[in-house]
C-alpha cells in the first residue's frame, strides 16, 4: 500500500469517525482526506460505510465519535443547510431536487433573491442561468426539471450545490444513470471545477470512471478505513482486492472439485439463458444452471448480479434473448408467480423491502410462498403450518421464542433463515439466492453455506450471488463474473479461485 504524499493543503479531514445504528457499527475509526483542487474517490462494497460517511458530512447523521475539519477548523454540521454554510455541498444519488419544479426554482429554493418579501423572478432566472453557465450549461431555466434528461438534472443539482460558494462538492454515485457520453461531459465539468480549486469527493462503484478522473482513492470496508492510495500508481487488481478484503496474490482456499461435479457438464441445463437482457439493466447474457450444481455470480456492487436474478424470476421483463426451461425454449416468466409454478424460487438480497413481512409471525412468513403457490382456496391447515414451522425452526436452528413471534423481533441471521425456509418448503428445482449471508454472523453464515451445499446434493440447481468471493469459491463448482452490467467471464473447476475472479473483475477493457 502506498500512502500518498500529496501536494495541496487538506481541505477536508475526517478522523476517527465512528457511527453505530442500533448496535450495528456502520463506521469504526474511519478517516478521509480531500485536498483542494483534487478529485478524491471514495470506494467500498455494500455496507462499507460510504453513505453513512457522506451523510455525516452533510449533517444528516450525528457522529458518535471523531472530528471533521474544513481547512483546519473543526465543524459539526447539524443539517444539510448547516453543512452548506460550512462550504460542504452534497448531491445525493437520488438527486435531491424536485422534478416538478422549474430549473430556476430547484437551483434557488430557499435562497431566492427577495424584494420587500417577494421573490424577484427575473433576478432568479438570471442567477440560475449564471449558476448553470459556470458549469457550461445553457438551458431554459423556466422549464420543469423533469423535462430534461437525468444528465442535465445531475448538472442542475451540481449548480445548486455550487451556488452557495461550496468549497467541497460531494457527489454520491453521480454517474449511475448516465450514458457514456453524458459521463464524459460531467467529467469535463468536474475537471474544470477542480482547476478552479474546488475539492471534489466522488462516491462511485465504477472502476473505469475512478481511474478516468480521480487523483486519490480512499477505500472503506465494513465500516473501517482500508487505506488511501494514489490512483495513478495503484493497480486495479489491488483496488478490487482492497475493496473485497483480499490480496491478489492470496492462494485460494479452493475446495477440491470432485469428479461428479465436472461430470455435470454433460447434463442438459435445467435453466438456460441465451442472450437474455434488458436495455439499461443487463446486457445480453448466457447462463446455464444445472441440477446438482451451485453456480456462483460474482461481481462488484451494481455489476448486474441482482438484475440477472430479477430477469429470470419475472420481477423485471427482458427485452431480448431467450430462456430455455429443461432444454425447451419458452417466453421468459412474466411474474414471480409464474416462475414459482415452474419450480423456481428467489431469495432477495433486500430482506427488508422484498423479503420479510415484518409484523407477521415466523410461521406466516414461512408458509406464505407455499400458500400462494397452492392458491388461496386450499388453506394449509393450522396444524400443517405449525408442523412446517417447527420443522424448519429445528432443521435450520432458527432462534425464535416461538413460531408465532413477529419476524421483526428476530435477528438478521434468523430472519434470513426463515426466508430460506420459505423457499425451501416449496422444494424448488432452481433456487436463486441473492446475498444469502449478508449481514449475518459468522456462525449463521457457515450454516447457510452448509445448507446450500446440501441443496446441491439433493439435486437442486442453485444460483448463488455473493460479494464474498471466498464463500463463492467454497461453495460453487462454476461461476460467472459480472462487471458493468454484463457477464465478462465464466470459470469452472480448477479455475474457481479468488485470484482468478479478481483478475477477471479488474481486467482492463479491451
Amino acid at each position, binding site marked *: 500500500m502506498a500512502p500518498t504524499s500529496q501536494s495541496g493543503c487538506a481541505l477536508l479531514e475526517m478522523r476517527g469517525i465512528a457511527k453505530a445504528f442500533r448496535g450495528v457499527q456502520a463506521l469504526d475509526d474511519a478517516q478521509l482526506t480531500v485536498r483542494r483542487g483534487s478529485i478524491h474517490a471514495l470506494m467500498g462494497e455494500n455496507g462499507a460505510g460510504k453513505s453513512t460517511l457522506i451523510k455525516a458530512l*452533510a449533517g*444528516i447523521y450525528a457522529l458518535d465519535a471523531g472530528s471533521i475539519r474544513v481547512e483546519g477548523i473543526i465543524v459539526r454540521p447539524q*443539517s*444539510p*443547510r*448547516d453543512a*452548506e454554510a460550512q462550504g460542504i455541498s452534497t448531491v*445525493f444519488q*437520488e*438527486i*435531491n*431536487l*424536485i*422534478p*416538478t*419544479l422549474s430549473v430556476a*426554482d430547484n437551483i434557488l*429554493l*430557499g435562497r*431566492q433573491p*427577495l424584494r420587500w*418579501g*417577494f*421573490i424577484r*423572478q427575473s433576478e432568479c432566472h438570471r442567477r440560475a442561468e449564471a449558476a448553470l453557465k459556470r458549469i457550461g450549461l445553457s438551458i431554459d431555466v423556466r*422549464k*420543469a426539471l*423533469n*423535462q430534461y434528461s*437525468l444528465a442535465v438534472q445531475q448538472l442542475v443539482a451540481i449548480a*445548486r450545490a455550487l451556488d452557495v460558494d461550496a468549497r467541497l462538492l460531494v457527489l454520491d454515485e453521480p454517474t449511475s*444513470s448516465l450514458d457514456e457520453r453524458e459521463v464524459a461531459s460531467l467529467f469535463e465539468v468536474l475537471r474544470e471545477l477542480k482547476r478552479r480549486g474546488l475539492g471534489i469527493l466522488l462516491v462511485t462503484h465504477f472502476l473505469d470512471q475512478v481511474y478516468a478522473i480521480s487523483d486519490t482513492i480512499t477505500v472503506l470496508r465494513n465500516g473501517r478505513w482500508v487505506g488511501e492510495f494514489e490512483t495513478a500508481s495503484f493497480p486495479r487488481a489491488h483496488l478490487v482486492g482492497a475493496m473485497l478484503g483480499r490480496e491478489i496474490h492470496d492462494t485460494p482456499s479452493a475446495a477440491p472439485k470432485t469428479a461428479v461435479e465436472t461430470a455435470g457438464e454433460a447434463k442438459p441445463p435445467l435453466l438456460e439463458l441465451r442472450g437474455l437482457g434488458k436495455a439499461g439493466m443487463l446486457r445480453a447474457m448466457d447462463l446455464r444452471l444445472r441440477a446438482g450444481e451451485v453456480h456462483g455470480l460474482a461481481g462488484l456492487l451494481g455489476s448486474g448480479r441482482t438484475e440477472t436474478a430479477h430477469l429470470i424470476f419475472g420481477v423485471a421483463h427482458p427485452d431480448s434473448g431467450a430462456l430455455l426451461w429443461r432444454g425447451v425454449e419458452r417466453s421468459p416468466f412474466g411474474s414471480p408467480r409464474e416462475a414459482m409454478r415452474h419450480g423456481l424460487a428467489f431469495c432477495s438480497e433486500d430482506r427488508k423491502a422484498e423479503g420479510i413481512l415484518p409484523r407477521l409471525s415466523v410461521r406466516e412468513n414461512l408458509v406464505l410462498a407455499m400458500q400462494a403457490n397452492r392458491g388461496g382456496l386450499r388453506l394449509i391447515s393450522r396444524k400443517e403450518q405449525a408442523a412446517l414451522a417447527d420443522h424448519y425452526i429445528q432443521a435450520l436452528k432458527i432462534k425464535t421464542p416461538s413460531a408465532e413471534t413477529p419476524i421483526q423481533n428476530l435477528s438478521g441471521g434468523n430472519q434470513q433463515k426463515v426466508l430460506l425456509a420459505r423457499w425451501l418448503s416449496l422444494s424448488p428445482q432452481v433456487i436463486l439466492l441473492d446475498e444469502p449471508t449478508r449481514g449475518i454472523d459468522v456462525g449463521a453464515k457457515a450454516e447457510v453455506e452448509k445448507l446450500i451445499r446440501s441443496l446441491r446434493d439433493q439435486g437442486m440447481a442453485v444460483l448463488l450471488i455473493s460479494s464474498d468471493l471466498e464463500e463463492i469459491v467454497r461453495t460453487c463448482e462454476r461461476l460467472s463474473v459480472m462487471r458493468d452490467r454484463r457477464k465478462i467471464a465464466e470459470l469452472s473447476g480448477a479455475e474457481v479461485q479468488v485470484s482468478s475472479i479478481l483478475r477477471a473483475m479488474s481486467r482492463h477493457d479491451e
Partner: protein
Amino acid sequence: MKAPRSLPLLATSFVFVTLYGVASALYPGFLSLQVFVNLFGDNAFLGVAALGMTLVILAGGIDLSVGAVVAFSTVFIATLVARGAHPLGAMAAAVTAATFFGAFMGWLIQAFEVPAFLVTLGGAFFARGMAFVVNRESVAIAHPFWQKAADFGIPLSPSATLPATALTFLITLGAMMIIAHRTRFGRNVYAVGGGIASARLMGLPVASTRIAVYALSGACSGLAGVVSTLYTGSGDPARAAGLELDAIASVVIGGTLLTGGVGSPAGTLMGVLIFGTIQSALVFDGRLNSWWLRIAMGGLLLLFVLFQRALSRGSALEK
C-alpha cells in the same frame, strides 16, 4: 415526450370555454356579462375555500374539514353579531379561530405523522359539532354595516355589477397567486408536495410549511364563511355539507395534482368556474335536476385524475 406543465391548465380552460359555449348556444341569455359575473359571486364561498384547499393539496395533503369549518364560521359570526358584536370584529374572530384550528390540525399531522385525511375528518366532526353548540338553528344577521357590505358592488356595465362576494373571491385569488408563485413559502409548498424527502435534504423548513398550509386553509374556510354569510345574510350550522368534496373536485379539475407539487390557484379558479357553469346551466335548463351537477363533477374528476395519471406516467421515466 414529456408533457409541459401547463397542459392540465390548458385542458381545464378548454373544458370551461367549451362548456360555457355549449350552454350559451343552448340557453338564450346565458352569454351575458351578468351571468358570467354571477359565476364568481354565486360560487365565491366555494372558490375561497377551494383556494385554501389548493395550497394544502399542492403540499401533498388534504383537508376534509373545509365544509364544517365554513359552517362554524357562518354561525359563529351570526351569533356574535346577534349578541351585539360589530360585524368586522365578528369576522376577524371567526377567521382567527379557523386559522388556529387549521394550524392545530396541521401540527397533529406534522408532529405525529397521523394521516391528514383522518385528522381533518376528525376536525370536520369537531367543527360541525361545535357549530351546533354555538347555535342549533340558522341565525339571520341584521346590522346596518352588514347590510351595506352585502349590498356593496362595483358596477361593471349598466346591467352588471361585481358583488362584494365576488370581489372577496378575486382578492383571495390574487393573494393566493402571489403567495404561491412569489414567496419563498409558496415555492416551499410546491417543493414539499413535489418531494418531501428532497425538500428536507435541500434544507427547506418542511415542518413549518406543512403546518402553515393547514393554517392558511383554515383561514380560507373562515373567510369562506364570511362570504357565505354575506351572500345569504345568515349563519347556519348545517351549511356547506360536502363542500370539501366540491372544493377538492374543483382543485383537481383545475389541474392540481392530488399527489402534490403541481398546479396553481389560477387552475382552481377554472375548476370553480366549471362547477359554476354546470350549476347555472342546470338552473337555466330547468328540466335537468341538481343531481346531474354531482354526477358531472364526479365524471370530470375521474377524467382528470386519469388524465393526470397518464401525464405523470409519461414523465416518470426516471423511476
